[in-house]
Each structure stands twice: as C-alpha cells, then as structure tokens.
C-alpha cells in the first residue's frame, strides 16, 4: 500500500477497511501467538511427510515412518499373546484341580474364563450367569449334569443333546401325555406328588394317588425320593430350584410334553486352555462341587 492511513486518536495505522465510518485498526498479532502458529505449521508439514495423512482414491499416503494403527493393534495383540504364553502353557499342562488350587493360575483362569464367557455363553446364561427359565443358573449349587470340575469340563466340551457331537450328553424324557403313555388325571396326580416331594403346597389325596404312577414311570431316572441323577441329566425334583418352573401347571406341562434344552459343544470352537479357563470360571461362581 502506497499511503498508510493512521488513526489520529490512537496513532495506530488502520487497515483501510471502513464500515459506516468506523475504521479497523491494524494491531499486530502477539508475537508469541505468531511463533506458535509458525511452529504448528512446520510441525504439520513434518507430520504429513512422516505419517499417513493425505487421502487418495482407494487408500492414503503411507508416510515415511510406515506407521499404521492397524499394525499397532496387531503388535499389541501379539505382545499380549506372548505375555500370556507362560501362563497358558501352565494352564495347558495343569489339571483342573491344580488350577483351582494355585492362586495365580486361579486368578488368570477366572479372568480369562470370564472374558470367554462374555463372548460365548452370555447369550443363554446371562452376563451374571444367572440363567433364565430353561437356561440353568450357573451360580447355584444344583447341577443337572454334575457340578464337579470334570463334569463341567465335559459338558462344556461336548454340549448337551448337541447333534453334531457323538460324545454329547444325551437323555430324553418321554412325552407321557403327548404320546399317550399316561392319562391326564395320572399326570395331574404325579405333578401333585412331585410338589409333595419338594415340600410345596399340594393336594394330599391326589399326591397319594400319584405315588404308584411316579414309582413306575419316573423313579428310574429321578429316583424314588426325587433326588434325580446327574449321570442321566435327570433334575433333582425335591430341591428349591426349578428349571422350567414349580407351579403345578408347569410341572404337568413338562410331564405331558417335556422341553429339552440344547447346549452346543465347544470342543471344536474353543481351544483346550480356554475350555479349562471357562470350567474353572463357572466352577468359581459359587456352586462348584
């Protein structure tokens, strides 16, 4: 600009811009601000050269350092695996009971088991492993197929009524009503008797009538006192825990046409260390035998 205009009052040069007679003073930016600004410009230039920065059509510039966030994650995962390798080897060679007895392995197995549980098991058993009708609560001390470490391990490996595994735990309760093995009145009486076994409110007369039918049809698996048999996956009928509900109607329904839960076997999907960790985790939930 050839002729600089100076504001008379403040003695400061103006920018020459005018709005309704008001002119803007040309005060310089603070120097520290300018230097910071220049420094960030230089930094940005270096950054663009060193790191991935400019998007191209199907990819982006890679930067001379060759950094990639994906590679960094992969590195971290590899490092985590390496860090776990020692413990995993110990878990692999130790028996389930040894894992449970060793505080260090127990802690590793329980936290690892919990992670595996949250990925694979919560869909049916719930995040707190408390289950829901038809899906057993894993916190309690009642086990359909046994609550010892070895029992839980086998259940986890091969599943229950899992058609793609020949070693799966399998048992079927006959549909006493639907297949016309028993009369409706007999089913009613057995249901009353089962409630009597469990110490629940019941019709005494009907229960007495049901004894004979129970012994004949049910005791083979559920035992005469109703204690059940984990070997056959026959639930305990006299305790306070009910897989499909304890009302007379729910019991009668189960006798008439039983529902049978299915659990997949995990032996082909999870490695053995993970299965062991899951076993110890489930066992540690409070009901393990």
């Amino acid at each position, binding site marked *: 600009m050839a002729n600089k205009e100076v504001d008379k009052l403040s003695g400061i040069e103006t920018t020459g811009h005018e709005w309704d007679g008001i002119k803007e003073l040309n005060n310089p930016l*603070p120097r520290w601000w300018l230097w910071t600004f220049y420094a960030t410009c230089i930094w940005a230039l270096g950054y663009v050269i060193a790191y991935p920065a400019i998007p191209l059509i199907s990819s982006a510039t890679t930067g001379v350092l060759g950094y990639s966030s994906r590679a960094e994650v992969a590195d971290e995962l590899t490092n985590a695996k390496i860090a776990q390798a020692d413990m995993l080897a110990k878990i692999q060679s130790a028996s389930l009971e040894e894992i449970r*007895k060793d505080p260090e392995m127990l802690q590793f197995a329980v936290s690892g088991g919990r992670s595996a549980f949250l990925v694979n098991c919560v869909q049916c058993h719930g995040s*707190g492993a408390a289950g829901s009708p038809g899906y057993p609560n894993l*916190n*309690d*001390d*009642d086990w359909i197929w046994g609550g010892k470490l070895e029992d839980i391990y086998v259940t986890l490996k091969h599943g229950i009524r899992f058609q793609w595994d020949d070693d799966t735990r399998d048992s079927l309760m006959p549909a006493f009503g639907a297949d016309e093995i028993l009369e409706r009145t007999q089913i009613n009486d057995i249901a009353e008797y089962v409630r009597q076994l469990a110490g629940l409110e019941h019709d005494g007369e009907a229960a007495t009538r049901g004894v004979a039918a129970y012994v004949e049809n049910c005791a083979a698996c559920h035992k005469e006192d109703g204690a059940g048999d984990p070997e056959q996956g026959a639930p305990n009928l006299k305790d306070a*825990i009910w897989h499909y509900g304890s009302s007379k109607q729910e019991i009668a329904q189960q006798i008439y046409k039983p529902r049978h839960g299915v659990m997949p076997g995990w032996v082909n999907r999870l490695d053995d260390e993970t299965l062991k960790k899951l076993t110890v985790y489930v066992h*540690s939930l*409070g009901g393990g035998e």
Partner: protein
Amino acid sequence: MVTVYNSVERIDAEAVNSKEKRSSYAARVKIFPKRVAGTFRQLKWWIMLVTLGIYYVTPWLRWDRGQHAPDQAVLVDLANGRFYFFFIEIWPQELFYIAGLLIMAGVGLFLITSTVGRAWCGYTCPQTVWVDLFLVVERWMEGDRNARIKLDKGPWTFDKWRKRLIKHAIWIVIAVATGGAWIFYFADAPTLLKNFLTFQAPFVAYSTVAILTATTYVFAGFMREQVCTYMCPWPRIQGAMLDEDSLVVTYNGWRGETRGGQKLRRTQGEENFGDCIDCNLCVAVCPQGIDIRDGQQLECITCALCIDACDGVMEKTGKPKGLISYATLRNYNSNVAGVESPTTWRSFVRPRTYIYAGVWSLIGLIMLGFLLTRDRLDINVLHDRNPVYVRLSDGGIRNGYTIKVLNMRAEPRTVTLSLAGIEGATMTRTGSDAAPSNSIDVDLKPDKLVSMKVYVSAAKASLTGEVSDITFTVTNTVDEESASYTAKFNGPAER
C-alpha cells in the same frame, strides 16, 4: 542546612511500565537489575539458601520404617499409591490430608498477605528464588547493571560470545539440577541417581527432567518478571487480599516530594524539596523494572530491594532511613494528612487476621486429630450386582461379596473376618475348602490390600425382608484393632 549530594549519582533508569509509555502491544523492555546490599537483600540470601537447601536435600534424608517399607523420609510412591512423610504414611484414600494441607496453604497465604503483603512473591516463590539465582550467575559473568547494558548493546565480539556461552551453560546446569532434584521425590533417590546416570532409569524420569530443565531455563533466564506480571494469577488475587492494614512496599511521598536532584536544589533552594533526590536507584535495582514511586502496582512483588537501595542513599545524604519502607495504606494516609504514624506490628492485630489464623489453626487441629486417631486396618465390601442373590437347592439365599481388607501397617498381620446381623448366616471364601462358618482367618501382607471373594448363605426365614443389613468385621487378633462395614444382603421379594 548544606548537604552534599555529589556522592549520589543520578542513574539513567526508567520504569518498564511508566505511565506515559504504557501500551497493550509493548514489546518487552529488557531489565538489568543493579546489585544492592542491605537488610532485606541479606534476608533474601538466607531465605534462598534455606528454600533451595530444603528442595535439594529432602529426598536424600532417610527414615527407618522397618524391612517392609521404603526408608526414604519423603517419598511419593506413585506406582504403589503411597505417600511417605517421615513418620506419616498416606494411602490414596487418605489424600484428603493433602487436600487439607493445600487448604491450609491457601488460608496461610491469605494470612500472610493480609499482614505482610506479598511476602510469598518477594521472598519464597520459586520464580523469585530461581530468578535471583540466575541473576547471581549473570552478574558474576557479565558484571553489574551498566556493564551488562553495555555488553548487551555492544557487537558480538569474542568476549561477548565467551561470557554469554558460559552464562547460559551455568544456567542450564542449574536448570538440569532443578529438574533432576524433582524426580528424586518419586523414587528411591540413590537407586534412581545410579540408574539415571547409567541410562537405566524409566523414560518418564528423563522426560520430567527435560521438561523441568526447559521451564527453569526459560522462566528464570528469559521470561523472569513476565511470569509474575502476565502468567501468575496471584497478583490479580492479591487485590482482594490486601487491605489498608496490609504491609506493602511504599514510597513515602509525603516526605519525598517534591523530588529534585542536586542541580535543581542548588539553583532553587533546598527548602523547596522533599527527601527524594530523584537518583533513580530504586528503579535500577528493581527486578520487575518498575518505579515504586508511581505507587503500589501489580508488577511489584514486594522484594524490598528498593528499600535497601533507598536506605543506602538516605544514609549518604544524611536523611532518616525509610523514604521507601514497608507501610500500611492507613499509616501512609495519616502521614499524608500530617499525623505522624509509624507502621508497627499493631497493624497485624485486627479481626481479619484473627479469622484467618483461627481458620488455619482449626483445619490444622482437625487434620491432626484425624491423623492421630486414624485406622491402620480397614475393610471395604462390594456387593455382587449380577446376580444380586442366588437361590440355593435347600431353599436358602446366597449373596456374593468382594471384600477388600487393607493392612496399612508395614508388618504382616492375621485378622479374623466375622459376620453379624443375619441369624445363622455362614460364609465361604473362594479357593478355600474350609467348611462354611461364621468367621474366617485372613493373612494380611505388610502394607498391602487383600481382595477376596466371599459367598454368604442364609436361610430365607432369617431374612427380615427383600433387603437385610449384614455387617462384616475384621479384628486383629493381636492388637484388637478392628474395622467394620455394613453391607446389604438381598433376597427374593416374597417371603
């Protein structure tokens, strides 16, 4: 009266913030503080010696705490979450002691400011102490004010290069030592020093030293008074803290004016002038580069060096000392009004200082009370949220808890964990095959926290409702110290 003024030469010094030239966009004017001797300068040397001594020596003091705790007297152990101060050990949940100390420091600062003004700024603030230290180096290398101004304006001769390089080298050594001393508060000092010198210390040690070196070098070497004037909030806050009874460095204009130098006095007559001979020495010695005769201003850190300078001049001119002195505004005003009113310690005696001192002591006493009666055994209980309760096969109800027992003594202890509040309730600890019982023994490691999972079972009939209270108590079998925690025990809604 005939006075010889020739002994005091007028110095060509101007305040950096002189009213006539004040502007929002002024570039920094370099300040070359002149050396001065006197009472306050002497005091400041001693305070510098003591504060720097405390800073550098403290991490090297040892304090025996037995084999289970570090033997460094003052240690902030961030990795393990412990703070050690001689006989006191603080866990993270006891950080309120630190908060209390900070409140005390704040109230203490109010108390100091309301009585003796900005004594913190002038004598003990690290910025002031380190700038003073850097100025010692600068004076030693480049000489006093005039020599430094000359050197600064002069061409870059070999001699200038030499002086400047040595000065900056010494500054950097001091800066490294400053940053270096800081890290020893956070780890065992002898070990860290060895590791630091052999390049085996953690990266954060080197980066901390680097950052503190940079800030020390830049703040004390280059930014100096700008830190006080532009960066520090305290000069702004002091406006609310000072009152007419606070001591501030004051130019006693009532006896100083009309100021006049020797020439004027000779031509116009001594009787027309006050005591100020306008020698500008007070401006030349000021590390903030201001003129105290312009009145109290936010740039002034009350370092009192102008008092020393002026007292020296008054001595030479045969006038009473104290033309520039610590004075309260009240005394100043009555002096202006013609009532002689010297400033004494009586200005400290007033409700405001009573209140500050009272609050300060109260917080101190409360903290001391807490400290002397605090527990060294503690228990925290976290109730399982998912599931909140589990129904057992015998109809009983089970709740899970994560129990943390804190042994805050540096010795191993065995405690008994027991239950109360629910009739017949029993517990088991995961990983243990012991039969369910009402109490279990727990081994505690020295100065450590033990976390354990405990399952508590109770008959449904013994519960008082959907939610019952249950109390966990840990008792040390030896010294009977105990701690309790009352948690909730959940059950089904129907009885």
